[in-house]
């Protein structure tokens, strides 16, 4: 059983490292809807995926306070307590990257959603369990972006 497990781990590491070597470091999506509205869809999808929203950073507010002209720019921080605890206990090198962050950036009447692809961190770690965590985060983030894209499309086309 142990032998099978180690072979599987090795196989997984091989497959995942091959796939991740060229992983785009960022996942992005453009939504043809105002950022204030899109932010609500983002928060809702994040929670539907089982994450808690830890904090909402008002980057535009900070810059405006200092006299810089800026548009709507928010960063949503989110995570799962058990994952964050596991990361801080076992992989302190990753604490800088949790909770996860998703930027909601206005571009006129449209919105750019951007998030760091956790798989960009994969080449730095050999641990099989951590690789699985990074893959899962990636999968969730893609799913969140997909959900927001589909939900906003429904609203725009009036099919929701």
């Amino acid at each position, binding site marked *: 059983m142990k032998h099978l497990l180690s072979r599987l781990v090795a196989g997984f590491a091989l497959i995942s490292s091959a796939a991740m070597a060229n992983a785009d470091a960022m996942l992005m999506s453009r939504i043809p809807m105002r950022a204030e509205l899109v932010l609500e869809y983002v928060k809702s999808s994040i929670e539907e995926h089982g994450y*808690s929203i830890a904090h909402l950073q008002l980057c535009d507010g900070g810059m405006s306070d200092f006299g810089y002209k800026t548009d709507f720019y928010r*960063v949503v921080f989110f995570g799962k307590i058990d994952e964050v605890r596991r990361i801080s206990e076992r992989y302190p090198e990753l604490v800088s990257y949790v*909770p996860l962050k998703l930027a909601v950036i206005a571009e006129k009447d449209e919105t750019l959603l951007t998030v760091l692809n956790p798989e960009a961190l994969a080449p730095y770690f050999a641990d*099989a369990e951590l690789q699985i965590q990074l893959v899962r985060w990636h999968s969730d983030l893609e799913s969140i972006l997909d959900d927001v894209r589909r939900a906003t499309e429904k609203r725009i086309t009036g099919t929701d």
Partner: protein
Amino acid sequence: MVTKLLLRMCCALAALVATDLVTAAPDGRELYMTHCSACHHLGGEGGIGLPLPAAKLADVTDDYLRKTLRNGRPGRVMPAFQRMSDAQVDAIVRFLRQDTHTTDPGFSDAPVVGDVDRGKAIYGEHCIKCHGEDGTGEGKGTGVTLSRERSFLVMPASISNRGFLASASDEMIRKVVVHGRKYSGMPAFGHGKLSDTEIDDVVAFVRAFEQQQAEPEPLDAEERPTHIYESPHDFETTVANVKAALTGANFRIFPDRLLEQGLIDEFSVNSRQVGIRFCNFNVLYGMLKIEPRLGIVLPCRITVIEHEDGTVTLAVPNLRVISRWFNNDELVELWDRMEQTFKDIIDEVTL
């Protein structure tokens, strides 16, 4: 435990396979929306990336588009889509053609023969003002407009970029020199302004940039995404020292946030893991002009963690590693310098 791990690995493998299967669907519009529209905009109007108007697509070949997708523009935001299948790349190119009602102009792949030295003199007279001595183009930013300031004009193309040179044929470069690009402000040098021979010489000079292109210096193998430092002080002293050092370095410090804050009730949160968040808005504003997507790594944060045995560590993100994820040379340069500032702060803290 073993069964659980096996199950997780199977799930993750399934996710990997599923991701590849989904992205293998050669639907050009869907692929464009997923991979290109965030930067080039939904209708190719441009944004973080260059605009893709019909006028531009009409004077580039399918081969140029394919190679551009594959090679990207190293150091200039446009990523290299090396994971895409040939069918996917072809599907995006087909979508762009259909969407803009353009066709491949069918340029020859034959090299243009010209005199590089004469070309250099002509380049110095007519091209250098916009494209710069080294052909990298002028102006700061990701290429075109910025989400923060939208009044920027189109930046001159980086014609010495190795991704561009690997994608464009000599004949394509020649046509652009001859006819110009009205939509981007590139003047036409044909029709008697420059002779055919002079234009060939310029093309030969531009092509010669290839010989000056070196692969960017890779990061040292030992570079990690985070620096971990042991603090010689207790938790409270370390936190106070970090704040004092950051203030001394002209950073504004935000209220502390515990690592677990917001993820669990306030009575259960671990209060011995704190993120000290800081920013210099003047620097940030400048950085957002260079890279509007920086929000995904903001604000800067030093995390102080007290372990069960009372030891205290500091986790500081490695800016040299992070900046390279943006494929933006300007950001890399800036953050390589900022990395030193962070090191100075940590030196002060851990003294």
